[in-house]
């Protein structure tokens, strides 16, 4: 390395484990690395917002087999018979259980579902139900296998959740309870296009709002609005906008006032349960002493430190045009899939942009899809193929680099949307990749 006095940009930042990408997989990898080796210096470098902000906040393990059987009552049973190359098959079912236990410990009371091996069926904002393994506490009272009647409440200004339609849809899906939906104005929302975070903050801060009943706090005003519609239901579901910083408090107060259980129906982007999970994970990263550098992309890498081009010496981070080397002993790639941009494509190729790891695919892009939108879509399986150590392999099945592991949606060989396995694979592979990386740290 050339050294020029005063040019700080050429000083490499040194760590033991460097995780690239700060979504669910990257956060789990960094947390498990810190957990597995107290002495290891762990850093997480991440660029844009992760898909957590788009995802519902549910933790799916496996809802359907890759062949489409399901919904599976017990996801763990089915883990044993997954095809070779599936990320769960790579890490083994024991590791999936360990990873989930690790997640449960981190999530604490914020998540439920750990009391049973069975999947839960959660009502979705489209009105159907979907199998998942862990769900936010805010969703717990809404499960579809709970036979108490439910009132769903939607808001006039929030077209993404049509409560009467969702209730009718749930009944068409055969749920064991009566569902009814009403649409009401949201007290204090004056703009037709207010963001969901605006709804949440109104309730968080319990802002004073004016309704027909005069001036009250937003929580009381909402409860009053809903009370008029309540018949003999013992639980009430809202779209997932019930607070951000003080979601538990908001829910508890609504429940107390209405004297029913209150739950949230997970929504599409931007998703408050997803944002809450992200906040939870970043809090845990801080507690675990992980250094987090965010808002900057990793753009390149160098090999050759030990005279080997199979060993990554350092990666290059672009900080506003300045290239800063980050060196570590072990690296974990958790840059996401097509959505997170860890996997990209052009007209004639699919590739992984940082290390150019091999992404199996056919060159003809007309073979990347099938005509049925919900058919067996090849593009949904795009991603890196890992060995059992989670090291991405090249076209001849040899590891691309000795000190690079990959986790989460950047891996291929599974269709998380069809299987309902997205967060589960990110947790399991993040956990394993981080743990292994920390265990072999050379220090």
């Amino acid at each position: 390395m050339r050294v020029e006095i005063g040019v700080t940009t050429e000083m490499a930042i040194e760590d033991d484990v460097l995780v690239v990408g700060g979504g669910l997989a990257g956060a789990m990898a960094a947390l498990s690395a810190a957990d597995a080796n107290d002495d290891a210096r762990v850093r997480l470098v991440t660029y844009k917002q992760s898909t957590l902000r788009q995802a519902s906040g549910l933790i799916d393990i496996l809802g359907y087999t890759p062949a489409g059987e399901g919904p599976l009552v017990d996801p763990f049973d089915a883990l044993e018979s997954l095809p070779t190359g599936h990320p769960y098959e790579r890490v083994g079912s024991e590791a999936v259980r360990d990873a989930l236990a690790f997640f449960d410990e981190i999530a604490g009371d914020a998540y439920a579902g750990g009391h049973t091996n069975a999947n839960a069926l959660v009502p979705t904002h489209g009105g159907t139900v979907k199998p998942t393994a862990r769900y936010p506490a805010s969703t717990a009272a809404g499960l579809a296998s709970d036979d108490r009647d439910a009132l769903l409440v939607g808001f006039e200004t929030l077209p993404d959740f049509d409560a009467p339609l969702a209730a009718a849809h749930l009944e068409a899906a055969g749920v064991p309870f009566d569902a009814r939906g009403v649409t009401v104005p949201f007290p204090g929302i004056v703009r037709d296009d207010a963001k969901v975070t605006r709804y949440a903050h109104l309730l968080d801060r319990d802002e004073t709002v004016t309704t027909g009943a005069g001036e009250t706090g937003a929580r009381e005003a909402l409860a009053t609005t809903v009370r008029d519609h309540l018949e003999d239901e013992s639980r009430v579901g809202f779209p997932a906008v019930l607070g951000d910083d003080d979601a538990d408090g908001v829910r508890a107060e609504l429940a107390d006032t209405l004297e029913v259980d209150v739950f949230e129906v997970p929504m599409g982007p931007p998703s408050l349960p997803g944002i809450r999970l992200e906040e939870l994970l970043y809090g845990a990263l801080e507690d675990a002493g992980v250094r987090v550098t965010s808002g900057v992309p990793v753009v390149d890498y160098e090999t050759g430190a030990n005279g080997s081009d199979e060993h990554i010496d350092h990666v290059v981070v672009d900080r506003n045009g300045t290239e800063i080397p980050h060196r570590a002993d072990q690296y974990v790639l958790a840059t996401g899939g097509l959505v997170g941009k860890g996997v990209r494509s052009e007209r004639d190729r699919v590739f992984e942009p940082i290390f150019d790891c091999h992404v199996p695919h056919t060159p003809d892009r007309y073979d990347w899809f099938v005509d049925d939108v919900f058919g067996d879509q090849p593009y949904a399986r795009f991603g890196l193929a890992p060995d059992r150590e989670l090291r991405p392999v090249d076209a001849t099945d040899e590891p691309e680099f000795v000190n690079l592991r990959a986790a989460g949606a950047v891996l291929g060989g599974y269709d998380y949307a069809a299987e309902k396995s997205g967060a589960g694979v990110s947790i399991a592979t993040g956990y394993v990749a981080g743990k292994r990386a920390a265990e072999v740290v050379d220090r």
Partner: protein
Amino acid sequence: MATDTEVLVLGGGSTGCGIARDLAMRGLEVTLVERGNLTDGTTGRMHGLLHSGGRYAVSDQASATECIEENEILREIAGHCVEETGGLFVQRPEDADDYFREKLEGCRDCGIPARVLSGREAREVEPYLADDVKRAIEVPDAAVDPFRLCVANAVDAENHGTRIETHAEVIDLLRDGDDIYGVEVRHDSGPGKRAHGVAGTTEEITADYVVNATGAWAGQIAALADLEIAVRPSKGVMTIMNVRQVDTVINRCRPKGDADIVVPHETTAILGTTDEEVSDPDDYPEEEWEVDEMIDTLSELVPILEEARTIRSFWGVRPLYEPPGTGTQDPTDITRDFFLLDHAERDGVSGLSSIVGGKLTTYRAMAEEISDHVCEKLGVTASCATADEPLPGSENIEALEAGMDDFGLRSPVARRSKQRLGSRAREVLETDAPNPVVCQCEGVTRAEIRDAIADSGSDLNAVRIRTRASMGNCQGGFCCGTMASELHPEYDEATVRSALDELVQERWKGQRHALWGEQLSQAMLNYALHATTMNRDRDPAGEEDASLEYDAFDGGRPAAEPRTDGGKHGRNASRDRGDH
């Protein structure tokens, strides 16, 4: 014998709807039948160029003259369907100077206002033009929205008493000796206004005169009465970009060729097109090379297209025709003029005329000529008024501009809504109820969706073409479900669900041709949203035996049972169930 209607028009494209409006305004009783939805044929699958005539100024001056006349008329009567973008014929260094000169002279011969711009001036108009563009001819090309135009004609025809029957496929021509006296249609349960015929039933509709305006399908209709029309359907691809790289119509100034026009259309730019004869207008290959050619060739004019994001591609078939014996080899050389085939003169069978060929730009003139012909047959003397009477939505645009601010919408939304609705904006948007945006990409509000539903029933594809909802960057990934919700409670849950499925499948169809780069990422996001968040791909409500065993799944943690969290105390036991 009394007939059901005076004139029966077959085909709900621009030609058929234009004829229906023209005849209805002349006081005739008209019925129009269409096998799918309005614009389901070529009209809904064209490039959106309101020709100035420049394109035909060298090869076909009669067409060119007609184009410029109609171009000027449509700006008047259909202002809300036309965006006055202007157009450029751009010459690259390798394009012939002679042809450039002929083009310029041709425009002047045909009365098309034309002005030469230097390369630098052209780049001032359109900064993304290639650096080596030599010069350009500026002409009054414009962008036209074929959906709005066609629907406006149909609505006005209805206002003048016409019965418009969609999802009614002509399955037979009623022929008595040498006279055609009507058709038999089969009503379909398909989407759309499900108001008239009952699905699965057939109906005979008799008429004094039948006009076959089924475009590329005209030969199939004629064959029902043993008549022959040698339509030569020719397909063309159009590739839609995610943003408007250009605000002016860009044409390549050379004799003929594929991939030589970019048309700005609403928030997008559309590249086109190809010209390939096909045997069946309902079944032809949609090929990868065609999309590649659009991007590769047109980026010679506008280099950033090479790297830009395309959101979908679609194909249409031209209803080309030439009189028997002409024998043109290359479909590009077949005339773009239209033909009125009077089967009485041609085949000795009375009561029927067919129209084939033509362009959307000249639909009104075609309709006028055909309507004159029909009136002559029926001995009616009323004359045509369509060149002067504005279409619904086009009256009074200025008054509308003035009053737009009141609608309480954010301005880009209001502006776009106003453009879509024309002078009907106030009527549709002035509502006391909350009016949130349903489609973010295109800025379409709930009131517009509901207005379109009132028109087209539970057919969300018809709502889409009326409003542009679901036609932006996300291709409906984020708004299809919300659009469907607006059908409820007027339509029941099962109808809403199937309308949504139909829309999602339709949106996917076009995206398949744009699946790389950003759009592939978008497709994965859409898929995740629909399949992962909502489980729409495995919806138990859609399954035959919806006998899910809910009991077997996690029902939440009952408060009464011993807990595994080491006995942390709950809050209120009666409402504690599962809430952890």
